[in-house]
């Protein structure tokens, strides 16, 4: 084949252009660690990676939601644990003072303590976690229980949180059923009745109020059991969300990332190719007749 001078130069020039292009894309991959940066690099991998990113993001916000659920349920559980203790102390007092050997003064002193316990229970029932009154249901902006009358102004609803797509867990328990507002045993009324019986030195009344206390304690324990199972649910959801994020990240990495060893060996190859093509071009023009003169 006849070789013209233009062919030699064009060939050298194209060699350098191609080598530079390869070197540029190899160094971009090596410096970003990404094999796929835009859709055209690998349309399918890019689309799958986008879907993975979306799943990862859903899992991330699910994890945050589960964390929030955990702190709400933990707060409610803590409050109810306090209520259980208060009710236990009240029962202890009740059992003691139902005994005939105590005087009216002793009972009046105990009545004072029971009233203090009632105040404590009322404040626990109005517990606020992260700006939310946990026993108020949806109407959670204000304390749901009147400290004096024990009247309930919440709506007894239980909010749900989404901890995975389409998977919703209830968070917290109804303040109405837990504290017996309009349903079950009214915890505040029970404590009030006991205090009144103690004040009026009504031994039979004190004894009678013990049943109410037992019923109240059971009600609280049921609620705590429910909260306990909710906490386990949120913990499970949180770790599921973490696993989903890790899996998403790993899948995405497989789709769009480049193995660093691969990236750097590609880069080294591209650099060598560029050096070689530049070296070839530098030898032009080959010593022809013109050079021999």
């Amino acid at each position: 084949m006849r070789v013209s001078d233009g062919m030699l130069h064009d060939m050298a020039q194209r060699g350098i252009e191609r080598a530079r292009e390869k070197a540029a894309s190899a160094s971009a991959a090596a410096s970003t660690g990404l094999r796929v940066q835009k859709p055209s690099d690998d349309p399918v991998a890019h689309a799958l990676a986008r879907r993975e990113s979306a799943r990862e993001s859903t899992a991330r916000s699910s994890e945050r939601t589960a964390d929030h659920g955990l702190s709400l349920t933990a707060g409610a559980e803590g409050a109810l644990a306090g209520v259980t203790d208060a009710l236990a102390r009240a029962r202890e007092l009740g059992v003691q003072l139902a005994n005939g050997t105590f005087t009216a003064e002793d009972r009046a002193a105990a009545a004072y303590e029971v009233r203090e316990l009632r105040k404590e229970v009322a404040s626990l029932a109005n517990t606020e976690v992260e700006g939310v009154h946990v026993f108020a249901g949806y109407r959670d902006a204000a304390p749901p229980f009147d400290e004096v009358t024990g009247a309930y102004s919440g709506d007894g609803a239980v909010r749900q949180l989404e901890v995975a797509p389409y998977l919703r867990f209830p968070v917290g328990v109804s303040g109405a059923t837990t504290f017996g507002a309009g349903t079950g045993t009214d915890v505040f009324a029970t404590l009030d009745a006991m205090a009144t019986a103690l004040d009026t030195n009504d031994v039979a009344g004190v004894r009678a109020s013990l049943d109410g206390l037992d019923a109240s304690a059971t009600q609280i324990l049921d609620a705590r059991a429910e909260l306990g199972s909710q906490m386990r649910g949120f913990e499970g959801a949180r770790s599921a969300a973490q696993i989903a994020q890790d899996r998403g990240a790993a899948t995405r990495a497989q789709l769009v990332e480049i193995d660093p060893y691969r990236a750097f060996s590609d880069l080294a190859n591209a650099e060598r190719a560029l050096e070689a093509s530049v070296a070839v071009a530098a030898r032009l023009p080959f010593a022809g007749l013109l050079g021999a003169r």
Partner: protein
Amino acid sequence: MSVMSLLNVGANGMAAGTFGANVASHGASNVATEGYTRRVATQVPLGPAPAGGNGAQATGMKRSIDPFVEKRLLGVRTSAGEAAARADALVTLDDIFADSGIGTQLDELEAAVADVAARPGEIAARTVALSAADSLARSLADAGSRVAEARSDANGRIRAEVGTINQRITQIAQLGQEIARSEVDGREASDLRDRRDQLVRDVATQIPVTAVQQSDGQISLIFNGRTELVSRDGKAHLLTASPDPATGDTRITAIEAGATVDITRYAQGGTVGGLVAARDGAITTAAKRIDQLAFDIATAYNAAHGAGTDLDGGTGTPLFDVSATAAGAAQSIKLSASIAGQPRKIAAAQDAVSLPGDNRNALALRALATTRFASAGTRTANEAFADAGAEIGTAVMTATSDRAHTDDAKVQVESLRASISGVSLDEEMMNLTRYQRAYQASLEVVRVADEMLGSLLALRR
């Protein structure tokens, strides 16, 4: 037969040698000239034979050219021009669908709505949700306007290309007439032909053309086998590029048999063809996808949001403002004016009596992230975006790989042409030496003739 004729032989040889050396030098100095075709000096022996011959006579020069290779070169240039223009026109689309912007904004809106669902009464969470919705709307609008820019860019380029085509065919027609005039004496007008051939090759990069040689040295240039751009009589027939009144897209028209004909769809090659293919193909698809996505998002979120109740008991507030139909939705979408800057208006609740902790509508809004409301109910918004990206990405990838292999094909034919028509300095140096020798030999002939004449004259003394 006389000694005097020997002088003539020498003179003729010197002239032929000078001419040959000239052609070789011309070639050597045009080694880097684009479109230069190597020439070979032609010479014939001068008769009459009975006299022993009159030496060499330079008859002119001939371009070393293979018409079949030239024809193939036009074809590969058309393909390479098409793929390169298409790839260049589409490359900006790729970035729109890269994994940033809309995809990330969709994720962030979902996360922000999830936070509102967890803390419906918190103004901070609502403020974040509003700004996420705003960012999403802006990303969509930005994508919409970038696609529109790509379209108007393609239209502008088509107009510009048609302008250059017209210039070139005018020059081709003029050169054809000059060539016809100067070749009357039978000598090839090599430089004019080179210039014309280069112009034809340039036009072939822009649109599919074939050149038909006429006997008088002119050519007729035919677009896509149907429209004469340069006719047999050496006239140029210009194309017109004008915007379509309905779409604003540039259309190309030609005059065929006295009637104006839209030839846009016949431009299936060259830079013009590439631009038309990009515009009517991937750019149009991208615009449709982005518009549909924006419209679907706005419709779904507005419906879900409007059904809920805000912190002050209000209902029916839209989240996004958008055009009435999908056409142009991307460029029109924005955070609704009736909610912008008013986080309390986010309708997280289902019921006005259960404020502020009611998150039921926020849950419904959040569920939209995993609801297949987009692409006629077949995909989630994120999936629709990802799939549109794959669609456009494939078009860009195809264009890029087309560019690479059509370029390879072009290079192959170009080097074939260079091997036939390109200048080799070694060869020209050899030719230079050859003619130099011929010249020296003829000079020697003159010297010998002179000596012979001298001897002859000395006889008389």
